[in-house]
């Protein structure tokens, strides 16, 4: 978050370095849910390492555990057993408050349905995560404006989500995900609600973020075409990693 205090620094130049230590490390992680009195194992003794600066596509059939894996790594769900370590922090050691602070500082979220707040403008939506930083209001607005410019929405600052197309809304969501300069971006079906052209734009943007900033990206997708934008494709089935291939 050090870069967050200097709004005049171009946002995409921050955090560009890569390190040898894994950004994400899962060791023997299991997760199950109770559905209708029956225990459903979603992740089964899964181990995984993702290097800093990597761009991973997680694929697999519905119910294979992709989104659960993403949620565990993002710190919005907890594993039953095993260890989830992100950026050197064992997430199990953090209580809910500390986990929220950790998410604010380290994780950027991109959702399939954008999840923008409809009563806020594009600029205000992007400014939201910066409320959790020590930036002053002017610096926050300047930074949000800057990032929206980088995703090609400099002329849509005051538009509310309802006044934007799906592709534009997803670009706002991407701007919101990167504005606080996170080390990790998790994207859950980011092109799932977009047409092919808009989806391609979003994927290209993610690719540029990964290459330009070195931001680690973990993306869940059903779309083979989207998966090709990633450097590596991991395939899950019934909670187990079954395949790993270059993107």
């Amino acid at each position, binding site marked *: 978050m050090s870069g967050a205090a200097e709004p005049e620094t171009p946002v995409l130049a921050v955090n560009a370095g890569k390190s040898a230590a894994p950004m994400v490390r899962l060791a023997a992680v299991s997760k199950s849910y109770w559905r209708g009195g029956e225990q459903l194992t979603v992740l089964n003794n899964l181990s995984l390492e993702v290097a800093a600066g990597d761009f991973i596509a997680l694929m697999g059939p519905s119910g294979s555990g992709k989104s659960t894996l993403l949620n565990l790594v993002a710190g919005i769900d907890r594993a039953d057993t095993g260890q989830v370590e992100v950026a050197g922090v064992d997430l199990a050691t953090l209580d809910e408050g500390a986990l929220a602070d950790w998410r604010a500082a380290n994780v950027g979220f991109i959702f399939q349905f954008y999840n923008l707040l409809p*009563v806020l403008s594009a600029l205000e939506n992007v400014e939201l995560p910066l409320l959790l930083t020590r930036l002053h209001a002017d610096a926050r607005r300047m930074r949000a404006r800057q990032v929206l410019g980088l995703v090609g929405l400099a002329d849509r600052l005051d538009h509310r989500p309802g006044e934007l197309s799906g592709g534009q809304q997803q670009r706002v969501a991407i701007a919101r995900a990167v504005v606080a300069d996170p080390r990790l971006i998790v994207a859950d079906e980011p092109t799932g609600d977009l047409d092919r052209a808009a989806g391609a734009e979003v994927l290209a943007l993610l690719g540029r973020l990964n290459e330009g900033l070195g931001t680690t990206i973990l993306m869940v997708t059903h779309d083979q075409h989207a998966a090709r934008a990633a450097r590596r494709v991991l395939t899950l089935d019934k909670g187990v990693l079954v395949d790993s291939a270059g993107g």
Partner: protein
Amino acid sequence: MGLLARLLLRNLLRHRLRTLLTGLGIVIAVLAFGLLRSLVDAFHAGADAASATRLITRNAVSLTVGLPIAHRDRIRQIPGVTRVGMARWFGGVYVDGRRFFPQFAIDPANYLSLYPEFELSAAHYAAFLRDRNCAIVGRQLAARFGWSLGDTIPLKGTFYPGEWRFRLCGVFRGATPVADEGQMFLHFSLLNERLRQENHPRKDQVGVYVVGIEDASRVASIAMLIDSQFRNSRAETLTETERAFHLSFLEMASIIMLVIEGVSWVVLLVVLIVMANALAMTVRERRSEYATLKALGFGPRHLVALIAGESLLLATTAGALGCVLLLPVAARVGLAVQDFLPVLTVHPQTLLQGMLAAVGVGCIAVVWPIWYVLRVPVTAALRRSD
């Protein structure tokens, strides 16, 4: 304005009709609450206006049974008693009888000196003392019937038959908000003289004695002394503080007041349920938005501020509006019920209670929605069916 404050305000105005109707519910509830509390206060106005240094002595059998006029001198001689006034319910009918107001026959010099809260100018006082056919009325009563000094007020007797005509010689004003300006006072001596002439069974009878005392701490002992003076006589007395005297009237209406008070709380309960329901709907609709905020790192503090802030902003705004509207509405209602409740005023305490009730509704209504938002896991709330 900060971004979170803007978010709060825009969320509040998101469903304008829902916000308007919920706010209207609170306005009406505060109005009804305040009005009902003011009605209860109006019942208590007599007791509230009571002086600590005034005792009321009446017949121990019943208030409807008089006391001999001869009691006055014996009461006056009791140590600690400063002055003794007399009053008798006249009960005349004005015009068609539909416009009721209380009339008392008094001995002006003593009685009025015991009630300094009825302010009468020296000229009006002198005029009243000078002429036994004179009467004085409260400012509110004079305004109600458009009476001016010198007007003749005709009354048809009920307890004391015949036509009675009084000349208006003075108008008094209440020195305190609870002083009753809706009364009329006439000369006891005039009434008693006529009763003597007619050899009326109620001649030389007084309704109550108003006893002024020196030391408020001696009310109990002086009341006992007065009553002991007349024990085993043909007209035993019951002496009590003026407040206790008024409260004894209220006891008859206590169940009505209890119901009124109960209804005032039920009104609040109903609006609490309405508001809680509106908020519950609202947070359910926005659950993915709150989940998004949680995912972005906003903690319980922010979420509670957003949800409670919205609720409290609506409740306090609507509560304040209800309090502002209460004053003119109570004034209108006061005019409508002035025959029976001459002192219907909204006390500052009632306004404060109304505001606190609105704030309380805003706080309580938000408990479940906050609990729901904080409890639902981010992953569950983000799962969408669309």
